[in-house]
C-alpha cells in the first residue's frame, strides 16, 4: 500500500519536495534553508553564559527559523498520526547485517532496543542517544551546517566548503557504521 497518506513516499517524490524548501524560504523572506543554526539560537536564547558565540540578537537572526523548527515538530506529529504506522521496508541485506549486530526489533522508525528512556542506562543506548546527540550538536556547529545547510543549500549553491563538509559527513558516518557500531551493538 503506497497511498499519499500511508506508507513511505518514493525517493523521486520525496527528494524534489525536500529540494523545494530551498527556493520556498528564499522567496518568502530571503532566508537560507538550514536547521542546525537553531541549536545555536536556542543556546543563545536559553544559556548564553559568558560565551561570545552566543551573544547576538537571536530573535532578529533566528526567530523565523525557530518557528520553522516548531513547524517541523508539529509536522512530524501530524504525519505520524495520519495514516498507518508501519515498519520501515529496509533492504534484506541491511536487516541481516543489523540482526548480526543484535538488533531484533524492526518495528517502528528506529530500533526500540536502542531508543527508549530505559535504554539510556545501557552503554549502547547512552552512546546512541546522548553521545550521538552531542556529536550532532558539536559537529554541526563546528562545520557551520548540517544535512540541510551544507548537503542541500550549500551544494545547490556550488559551495566548496559544503562539499568538504558533506565528505566529512560520510567519512564520519562510515566510521561510525563500520568501526563503532559493531563494538557498541555486538559487544553487549
Amino acid at each position, binding site marked *: 500500500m503506497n497511498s499519499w497518506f500511508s506508507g513511505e513516499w518514493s525517493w523521486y517524490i520525496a527528494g524534489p519536495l525536500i529540494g523545494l524548501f530551498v527556493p520556498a524560504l528564499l522567496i*518568502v523572506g530571503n532566508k537560507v534553508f538550514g536547521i542546525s543554526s537553531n541549536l545555536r539560537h536556542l543556546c543563545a536564547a536559553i544559556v548564553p553564559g559568558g560565551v561570545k558565540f552566543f551573544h547576538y540578537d537571536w530573535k532578529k537572526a533566528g526567530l523565523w527559523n525557530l518557528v520553522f523548527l516548531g513547524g*517541523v515538530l508539529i509536522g512530524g506529529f501530524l*504525519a505520524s498520526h495520519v495514516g498507518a504506522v508501519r515498519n520501515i521496508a529496509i533492504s534484506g541485506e541491511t536487516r541481516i547485517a543489523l540482526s548480526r549486530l543484535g538488533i531484533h526489533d524492526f518495528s517502528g522508525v528506529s530500533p526500540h532496543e536502542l531508543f527508549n528512556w530505559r535504554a539510556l542506562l545501557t552503554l549502547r543506548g547512552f552512546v546512541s542517544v546522548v553521545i550521538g546527540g*552531542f556529536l550532532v550538536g558539536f559537529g554541526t556547529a563546528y562545520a557551520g551546517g548540517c544535512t540541510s545547510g551544507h548537503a*542541500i543549500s550549500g551544494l545547490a*549553491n556550488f559551495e566548496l566548503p559544503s562539499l568538504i563538509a558533506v565528505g566529512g559527513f560520510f567519512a564520519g558516518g562510515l566510521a561510525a557504521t563500520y568501526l563503532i557500531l559493531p563494538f557498541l551493538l555486538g559487544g553487549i
Partner: protein
Amino acid sequence: MTATSLPAIEVNGTGDSEQAARRSVILLVYLLIGIAFGVVLTRSEVVSWFRIQEMFRFQSFRMYGIIGSAVATAAASVALIKRVKLKAISGEIIAIPRKELGSGMRYAAGGTIFGIGWALTGACPGPLFALIGNGDSVMIAAVLSALAGTWVYGWLRPRLPH
C-alpha cells in the same frame, strides 16, 4: 459614527501595529512551511535510523536518490532565482551569502564529527525534532545533548582550528 471613527483607527493602525501584524503573518508562513517539512521528513522516512544504516551500508539507492534529487531541484531553483534576479516577498533582492573556506578544517573536522553523530542517532537535526513530534520522546534527550554539544563548541571555538 462608525464611518467617522473607522478611518481614524486605520490611520493610527498604519504604524507599529500593522508592521507587527505583517511580521506575525510571515512567521505563520514559516510555521506552515516547517509543518510541511516535518511531514516530508517523516513520510520520506529520512527520519529512520534504519534508513540511515541502509545508506551508510550502501544497501539501497533510496537515500542517495532522495539527497541527489533534492540537491538537483534546489540547484535548479537557485540558478533560476539568480538568473531572473527575483525579489523575495519581503521585498529584498534574494542573495545567498557565500561560505568562507578558510583552511577548510572546520568543514572537514566538524563534518566528520557530525557524521559520527548522524550514524549513531540515525538523525540529523531536522529529523531529531520531527521524531519528537512522531512521539519518540527519548529524542528529547538527544536534542538536549545536541544543545550541550553546540554550547561546548561555542565555548571551545577560540581554541579550535577553523
